[in-house]
């Protein structure tokens, strides 16, 4: 359990603070359901806006790889797993609550308002 961060800027716990240098994300979706599609769109928008060049995103369709769902303990769909920086966080839902997503990813929201 290394607590060292790449760049050493972000604290271990998410929330207010400096943005992490690098974010590793896995998004598990279930085919082309509306929720899944929305989640992909929302996540891509967040990454482009807040993490340009600092993230790695892997989108996994659990219909295609059902064994992964079991291995990764996926229950809800869509599920976003933030693998890095630690701690690992799981976000379920279509990621439309941008404020929550940003906080969970350890990114500073643009302002104190919940979301735009």
């Amino acid at each position: 359990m290394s607590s060292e961060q790449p760049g050493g800027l972000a604290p271990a716990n998410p929330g207010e603070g400096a943005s992490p240098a690098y974010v590793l994300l896995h998004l598990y979706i279930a085919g082309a359901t509306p929720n899944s599609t929305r989640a992909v769109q929302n996540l891509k928008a967040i990454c482009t806006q807040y993490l340009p060049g600092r993230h790695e995103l892997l989108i996994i369709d659990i219909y295609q790889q059902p064994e992964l769902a079991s291995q990764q303990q996926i229950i809800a769909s869509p599920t976003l797993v933030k693998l890095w920086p630690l701690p690992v966080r799981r976000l379920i839902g279509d990621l439309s609550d941008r404020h929550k997503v940003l906080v969970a990813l350890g990114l500073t929201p643009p302002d104190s308002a919940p979301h735009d």
Partner: protein
Amino acid sequence: MQDMLASSAAARPQLPKAPTGIDGLDEITEGGLPLGRPTLVCGSAGCGKTLMGVEFLVRGILNHDEPGVLMAFEETADELTANVTSLGFDLKALQAAGKLKLDHVHVDRSEIEETGEYDLEGLFIRLGYAIDSIGAKRVVLDTIEALFSGFPNQAVLRSEIRRLFRWLKDKGVTTVITAERGEGSLTRQGLEEYVSDCVILLDNRVIDQITTRRLRIVKYRGSTHGTNEYPYLITEDGISVVPVTSLKLAHEVSDEIVSSGVPALDAMFGRRGFFQGSSVLITGTAGTAKTTLAAAFAAEICRQGKRCIFFAFEESPRQLVRNMRSVGLDLAPYQEQGLLYIESSRPTLNGLEKHLVTLHKLVAEQKPAAVIIDPISNLITVGNTAEVSSMLTRLIDFLKVHNVTALFTSLISGRNVQQEMTEEGVSSLVDTWLSVRDLEGIGERNRGISILKSRGMSHSNQVREFIVTDEGIQLLEVVVGPAGIVTGAGRLTQQLQEETLALAARQEAERKDREIERRRRMLEATIDNLRTEFESVEEELRRINQEELLRQQAQLTNRQQIASSDGRPSAASPPLA
């Protein structure tokens, strides 16, 4: 038992069912759980919900070759495997054989953040994948409500769980869902019971410090089912449900007779013994040789080369064997031959149901001709009267169905000797009822045995006194005194009196004989006298005759002499030479 089910089910087409293979459960569900539909098993902690689920899967694989999926929300695969190993379920081997799939679903609220709309498709996919990969026919979800602790959005969960049930039905898998019992409702969420086609409620109750587990079928769509609460047990072989009473009174009966082991007692029965497969009750106060009578019966069964199981709730096997040796009943050889099996345990060791299951198991294993329980009255210490009574009803039914002769002893209260009611109220269930009691007289107690009832044969109405000797039990001959049958010292007195009377009568007879002899002799003497007298008279007469003849001759001679003399008028007289 399955034959009985088959015969009752044959009448009409029935809902297709998946046999659980769980001892007794198929009997009360009349064939098993609804095939291809979800069944809810709910109950509080420690009821064996998970175990029931696992057993359902394992039995399905072993008995019906139906692969199964176990989705565990609370225990990991390793924990589950370890927990059921002691029951002889080897989940690892079943998994390796591709018959079983374990999937642990880890739900942790702290890791989960809701960020918008979602569904539980991940769960569906996992489950679908597990089912398809092994061709599963059976699924267990243990315990699905764990999801509620992980996902805050109740509305989504409820609709998703509904969808899951629908989806499982469409898949055609027979599903068991377990759930914790809620306050005032069957489940905490009040959801599963409405979407399940069958609901089985498990209950764990402590009454008078004794735990009894009970099972009830709350609902079963499209099928009749047993509605009672059925006790069940978690035994070393898994769950065992004991139907309260066997379903019908339709068992085969035997016309064979078995001896009681006491020949004189047999003689009191019209058919010289008990019917094979009947139930015999021996009631009596303390120390009336109930156990000895029971042991005599056991020895008789074994002597004929049949098996006998002796449940001793008061004595250890060695103690029983030793004690019975003192009355000339040597049980040890039968034990060695494996004919006699003595099972000793304190009644309080187990709940009633456990005793019943032990008995079921032993009967199934040993196939005995007779079972003895000594005494049933001790069972009252582990249950209330109603429970003991119901247990004994089940027991008697069970033994009758298996054509096993049952002999029970029961201690009755000594305060009221005439009390002919057993506390367990089983006296009406048994076929033959023997009563042994103390016949207490002045300064002594004697044992008396009588037959209170004997279904299907005539029997003696006498109270027979019996003694326990070095050679076993002996019934004494009936002695009738002026005021009825007498026993003990009264019997001896009566016998002495009778002997005295007999002696007097004999002496009287002898005296009369002597009198006759004397008379005869007197008569004979008189006859002799008369004869002598007659002879003397006869002789006298003869002598007189003789004399007369001589005199006449002499006269004639004289006359002739006179005639022959000259000129004498008496010329007619011959002349003298």
